[in-house]
Structures are given as C-alpha cells and as structure tokens.
C-alpha cells in the first residue's frame, strides 16, 4: 500500500512538472518570445555563479567534516612517503581545480547571452596553447619522477634487510591464514602436490622438514616496531588482496603466483592510540562500545579484491608490538600446527576433489555480527586440530 502511495505521488509530481514545463513554453509562445534565450541565460548565469561558489564552500565544509574521520596517518615508513606524494599531487590538483572550475562557470555567467550579445571570433592562439601544454607536461614530469623514486624504494629488493621478519599469509574464501615460522625463525617447506595438499594440510606443509614442526597459525598478525617485515602472499582458490590500510600496504594474493610486500611498521598499536587520543574526533564516544574511539583503535587486515559473497568479511586484527621481547613472549604462547600426527599419511585416493564446497557457510550474512567470536573459535579449533581452518559453521 505504501509502495502504491509513493508510486502515485511520484507520478503526480512528474505530471505537475510536465504541466509546468508545458505552461512555460506556451506562455513564451503567447508573449512572442519563442526560443529566445536572453532572459533564461541571465538567470542561469546567476545559477552557475551561485553553484560554483556553493561548490567551493561545500568542499571546505567536507574537509572540515570528513577529514578527521579518515584513516589516520601512516603507521609505516614507506606510507609516509606515499602520503606525502599524495599531498604534493593534491596541491597541484587543487590549484588547477579551483582555477579551471571557477573560470568555466564564471565565464558562463559573465558572457551569457543575456549580457554579452556579441561573441568574439577568436579561433586559436598558438603561444597560449603551447604554454598550457608545456606547463602541465612539466608538472606531470615532476610528479612521475617523484613517484618513481618512492616506488623503486618500496620495491628495491637489493636494499632489503636480510634479517627481516617473514610472515606467510595465504588467503582463501573467506579467511586469512597467517603462518609464522615459530621460535626457530624458519618455515617448513611446502610441497604442492595432491599427496601433500589435503583438507588437513591445505598448504601442503612437509612435516618431514624439521623446520615445520614449530610453525604456527596466528589468530592475528603481529609485527614489531621498526623491524622490517616481508609478507609472503598466496591464495588458494580465487584472487584476494592483502590490504593493511593503516600501513599503506596492498598486494594481490594470486592462486598459483607468489607475491610479497616488504615494509617497516613505525608505530606500535599503543603509540597510535596515544597519538589519536589527542584528536577531537577520536575522543568522541563510539556508541557501539560506549568508549572513546581511540581506546578501541586497532590495525586491521582487509581484502580488497572481489572474492565472492563474503568478501566484506575477511577481517583480521593486526598488532604492532614495541620490541622483540614482547614479540617472543607472544610467540611462546602459540601452539604449533604440528600437534597431531602428520596428516600426509592419508591414502592417495581420498585426496581427490570432493566436489564443490557446497557446505560452506550459507548463513554468513546473518552471522556477521557474531563474526568476531567465530573467528576466535576457529582459531582455537585450528590450534587444537592442526587443520588450517574449520569451516565457519
């Protein structure tokens, strides 16, 4: 019923508008004005001028309202450089934006047919055109050079710290599997064949490799302040994308093609909270937790490549600790994956694909609110059973 009323109102509204339009047209014809645009141009000139002023004012207002809510400053070293590059580009952009937008609408207002009867026949000006070709070209060249310097610093393999911490993150629908090398600092080998990859050992870890015995699954990603980290990325089923918004880190996880990202965290989670504590918006109370926002601030890992129905649910917490000691303490509390007899003894014929994963969580939408608890439960089950992941049912 409500739907019908709304529909009827919309139809009525449109009918009224069409009638107004038609009436205007008829009254113009009666007055003998026809398609004369003089008066209309004058009015629209004012509208355009008003629009461009309001547009600029609204942008200032948007900055005031929205900038404090944005993802805060970079928590990694390279991120500071990319942010810096962003602001440099923004500076040039803002100049061009203000000048061109204003000129466009102002000229529309200033030279509208209502006030300017005679147009100037002026077809080109080579000098002017060369100037406005060369200046953008120079600015863009500067931006390319600046950009590439940062880019090659981020991806310069030679200069990387050989002792960087290494974490292996494998994505699958709809979960992040983070493997840490354990106290020995070495990952167990993986053997990618049907004999090693099975539901109990999705990565195909070679249990005969002694290094594998202390590898563990982490329920959250833990990094150390100022310690470079190399994240080795992979995906099981479809493409995912490893995204740490606070660290300005993003890299696709592609099935069959290993990728990686190297970066150095700059602020611990605690330090970031201390920084945010000073900012007005972060002092406001979050209605969901009843606490100031800075208190519950945490780094998070998200997926940024469409990967299926629960793409939006691939969350994992990220923690930056202050030093190795704190990190080692955390490592000590973890349980190795290898807590049950090696599962690669399973008979070969049981390893065939069992058909599509039809039993996978169809209820994910409804369960989204309980997700956090679920994730924790998953991790517990992982730790106890030695399997990578129990389906979230």
């Amino acid at each position, binding site marked *: 019923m409500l739907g019908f009323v709304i529909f009827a109102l919309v139809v009525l509204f449109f009918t009224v508008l069409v009638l107004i339009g038609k009436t205007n047209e008829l009254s113009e014809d009666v007055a003998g004005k026809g398609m004369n645009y003089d008066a209309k141009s004058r009015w629209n000139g004012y509208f355009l001028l008003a629009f461009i002023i309001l547009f600029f004012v609204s942008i200032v207002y948007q900055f005031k309202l929205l900038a404090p809510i944005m993802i805060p400053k970079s928590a990694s070293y390279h991120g500071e450089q990319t942010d810096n590059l962003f602001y440099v580009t923004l500076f040039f952009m803002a100049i061009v934006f203000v000048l061109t937008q204003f000129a466009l609408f102002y000229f529309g207002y200033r030279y509208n047919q209502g006030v300017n009867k005679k147009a100037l026949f002026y077809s080109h000006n080579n000098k002017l055109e060369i100037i406005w070709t060369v200046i953008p070209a120079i600015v863009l060249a500067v931006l*390319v050079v600046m950009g590439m310097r940062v880019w090659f610093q981020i991806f310069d393999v030679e200069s990387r710290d050989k002792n960087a911490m290494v974490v292996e993150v494998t994505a699958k629908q709809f979960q992040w599997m983070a493997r840490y090398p354990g106290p020995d600092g070495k990952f167990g080998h993986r053997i990618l*064949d049907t004999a090693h990859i099975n539901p109990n050992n999705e990565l195909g870890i070679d249990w005969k490799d002694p290094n594998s015995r202390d590898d563990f699954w982490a329920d959250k990603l833990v990094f150390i302040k100022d310690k470079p980290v190399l994240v080795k990325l992979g995906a099981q089923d479809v493409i995912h994308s490893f995204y740490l918004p606070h660290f300005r880190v993003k890299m696709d996880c592609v099935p069959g093609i290993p990728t990686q990202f190297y970066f150095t965290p700059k602020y611990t989670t605690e330090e970031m909270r201390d920084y945010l504590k000073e900012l007005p918006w972060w002092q406001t109370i979050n209605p969901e937790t009843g606490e100031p926002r800075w208190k519950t601030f945490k780094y998070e890992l998200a997926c940024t490549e469409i990967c299926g*129905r629960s793409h939006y649910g691939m969350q994992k917490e990220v923690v930056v600790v202050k030093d190795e000691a704190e990190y080692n303490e955390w490592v000590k509390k973890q349980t190795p994956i290898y807590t049950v007899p090696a599962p690669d003894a399973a008979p070969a014929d049981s390893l065939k694909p069992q058909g599509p994963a039809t039993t996978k969580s169809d209820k994910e939408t409804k369960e989204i609110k309980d997700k956090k608890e679920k994730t924790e439960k998953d991790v517990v089950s992982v730790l106890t059973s030695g399997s990578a992941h129990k389906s979230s049912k």
Partner: protein
Amino acid sequence: MSAHTTTTPADVHGHVDTGHIHGHEHHHEASWLETYVFCQDHKTIAKQFLITGIFWGIVGGLLSVLFRMQLGWPNETFPFLETFLGKWAEGGKISNEFYLAMVTMHGTILVFFVLTGGLSGTFANLLIPYQVGARDMASGFINMLSYWFFFSASVVLFISFFVQTGPASGGWTAYPPLNGMRDVAINKGSGLGFDLWALAMTLFIVSSLTGGLNYVATILNLRTKGMSMMKLPLTVWAFLFTAVLGILSFPALLAGVALLEFDRLLGTSFYLNMIVVNGHLLDYRGGSPILFQHLFWFLGHPEVYIIILPAMGIVSEVLAVHSRKPIFGYRAMVISIMAIVIISFLVWAHHMFVTGLNPNLAAVFVLFTLLIAVPSAIKVFNWIGTVWKGSVRLNPPMLFAMGFVSMFISGGLTGLMLGNSPIDIQLHDTYFVVAHFHIVMGVAAFFGMFAGVYHWFPRFYGRFMNDTLGYIHFYVTLIGGYAIFFPMHFMTGLPRRYYTFANFETFNNFNFLTQFISIAAIVVFTAQLLFVVNFFYSIFKGRKVDVERTSEDGYTYGNPWDGATLEWTAPIERIHGNWPGEIPSVHRWPYDYSVNDKPYISQDTPLAPGEVEHK
C-alpha cells in the same frame, strides 16, 4: 544503401549517384517492419540505439538505487524488495550474493550497454552521415546488423537476471579464477549467469565491430565534395577515433572471454593454476589469472576512451554552437584526440599495479598514464577558452556541456593520484577509485550524452525537448552527481564492493555519509526519470522547430540553434537519403560563428569574394 559499399570515394565526391538515386522520388513503399524495425536508415538505427540505451540506463540506475539502499541502511529491511526480488531479498534484505550481482551488472550495463552502445551507437549513427554529407552509412545493412547484434546482446544479458543461480556476480571485470570456474559454490554468479554474460559480451563485441567498421568506412569514403578531413566537425573526429579504438581493442576482450569460457567449459587452464578448494588441489596447471587481466584491460582502458571521446566530440560541438564562437584551437583538439587514442593503448596496466606486476614495468605505465593527462588538459583549456568572451546561450544542451567539462576536470585530476603507482597502493580498489571513474567517465559521459540529446533532439524529431524540465534535470543532476561522488573521495581507503563495513572498525565511521550518498543517488535517479518523461513527451508534444523556408517540393528547413554544420542544411523532415536534391558541398570549416557580422556561416556557403579560408 549497399551500392555505397562499392562506390569509390571519387564517385561519391563527384556525386555520381547513377543507378541509385536516394531522393524521395524513388523510395518504394516501405513496410512498417522495414521502417521501424529492420530499418537500414541511420537515423532510425540511431533512435533504436538511443531508446535501447535509455532502457538499460533505467535498469542500471535502478540496480544502483537498490544496492545503495543496502549500503545506506545496512540494518534495515525493505519488505517490498522481497516482493520484487524474491529469494534474492529474503525478509526484505538484499542478500550478499545478489548485492555483488547487482554491482557487477550495474557496471556491465552502464559501461557497455549505455555508455558505449547507447552513447556511441546513437550519435555516431545520427551524426556521421549528416555531418560528413552522406546519404547514409557505407553499408546500411551492416549498420542494421550492428543494432540487432546489440539488441540480441541486450536480450541475453536481460535473460541472465532470471536464471536460477542469478546473473554474473564476480565484478564487471570478470576476473578469473572467481569467474573462471563454473562452480556456483565458489560464486553463485559463476554458473549459467556468467555464461550468459560472456555470450552477451560476445554479441556486443560483434555489434561494436560491425558498427565501428561502418563508421570508419563512412567517414573516410563518403565525405561530400570539399569535406577535407580538417573540415570535419570535432564530433566526427571523435567518432572516427572511437571506432578505431573499438576495432583495435575489442578483439582482445573477445579473445580473453573465449579463453575464459574454454577454462570454464572445456577444462583448459589458460587462467588457472594450482587452485585449492576446501583443501583439495584441483587439476588446473600452468595458467595465469593475471593474463586475463592484461587481456581485459587491453580493452578495458581504451574502453573508457571509447566512452568519453564521443562525449568530448559532442561537447566540443555544443560548446561552440551555444557560445556562438568557434571551438578554440581546432587543430590542437584534433591532435589531442589522436594523442589520447595512441597513448590509451599504453596505459592498461595501471589497473594492475598491485597484482605483483614487475615494478619496472609499472614505471612505464605510470609515465604514459600521467602523459595522457597532457592532451586531456589541452582539451579542457580549449573548452574553457571557447566559452570565454562568447555570447553564451545557457540552454539545457549548453549547461550539460559545461557540466561535462566540470565533471571531466574533477574526475580527471584524481587520475593523477591513481595513475602514480606508489599512491595507488593505498587507493587501489577503494572508494577513491569509485569516485574517480564515476565522475570522469560515468557522470561526465552522461552529461555529454544529455548535451547531445537536448541539442540534436530537433534533428531526431523536428521538435525541442521542454527546456524547463531540462533545467530541473540539469541542476538536480549536477548538484546530485557531486553530492554522490565528491564525498567518496574522503572514503579513501574504504574497499569497494563491500556489502557492509560493519566487520571493520577501520571502515565503520562513515554510516551517516553512506546514507547521505544513498539519498542523493535516489534523488538523482528520479531526476533521470524526469528526463525520460520529457524525452517521450517531447517526441509527440514538444515545441516544433521554426520553419525558416519551404522548398518548392514541399520540404521545410529550419536551423534551430543556428549551427554551421551540415546536419542543419537537411530538411526538418527526416527523409531517406537525408537531402532531397544534391548533397551540399562544403567550402569552409565547421566553426564559422560570429564572423563577418553574421551569427554563423553554414559549411555549404561558398567563400565570399576576397574571403580567406580559415586554416
């Protein structure tokens, strides 16, 4: 019209139309089917493209309204949705699977079926023969086929909404492996829905290629006497290069989609390697998912120029006519179109900076991506220069053309950030990208299209669209368009294609803003319906074009906007063959406005004694 395919350019330029006179005196009684359905006349085909495009515009817009409702009010239910969508919105809440399907179909429909088929198909068909001075396209029959392939593609795509597992839902970019395995457990839309998507795209590509070849052939071969390339209006230049882009890039997508279907249906591994599902290693070996991205974006990037170039051409023409001034820097405009076309083939991997692409390769693509901003900037400056000191007639087509320039500036500038790979690390696949491309190629292209529809409506139907409704349409769309997409720049870092942000503390701060955007989207969508109402109302009841003179054989002539291009020298009646007598010959460039104390001098007016031709 088929005789034209065999006539040599010399014949046409000399008007040797022997044995095939297209004037009204020879036309046989066409049946209803031939006049309105299987019609080979470029004007009717243009209308068919336009009306199909309007249909898809409504569908695509409606999809965006639906998923904006989910994004704006993630915790609400809308019981009426269940009435219409059934199992896709149980309890009045859109399911996460259907959300992705809507996002996917919205992208596919808007990019291909509205802004390529609807925009390029409409105006290239209407304007090329009129503006180059031809009786019709080089091949009317192939032109008709082009539309009917487009129609078939539309039918197939529409059917895909009604299959059991739903339409394609893996993103309009169709990346494998999500779309590369025919497994509805991985992704519901990867079942039959995706096969239909692939079939629709194939038919669409055939349509685009047949259309494009025809446009190129017509522009190169059927120009009237005196119409040298440098006397072509910028619209025709834009259509020419759009067609060239399409011809060179669409085959890459066709190949890409064909291989994708091989993977899906025949078990090949072009794009698949070492896939593990539920702990089971599947049999695919040696393919690369990234290969598909290369093929896709080899089309995908030129595609955005296929969308925007016709809009640029239309805007150049409309700005000049309604500023009563020649377009500023005609030559620079032509050269910058060429530059854009060439560079647009060398930038595709900027969509792939974070796929693990070789960083050295990325550097090349950064360079060309920022380089393409130079010709774009030239065009913007020249458009503004055209308005400067004009006698600007602020009517709906002009306003939409100015809106186009404004949107193109706003959206184009953010491209400088996205195109710079280190900045793109953070921005890639976030709302910043959504804001960027919607403004620069979505809203802007729509503004170009609206400018064209309002401007050439008299050419289509001999009537004007109502301008009061046009003004309302313009201001709501301009303000609303910015209200939707400008604030999204501040949602930098929020991943796109998320059903809800509730799982992330980092992204969960923008609820009031997503609601505001959703309301703005609904308002803007309603304003577009007003345009549709105005369009169909004006076909029948619009104000008629003033008749300036009537020829002896009863044809009426009028030039509603005082335009200098050839389409206004044809009679108001839309006749087969366009001009009843001889085709006018061309003596001057298309932008003689406010010159020699005349408001305009039509292209077919010979040079006055002593007048120097504009170079």
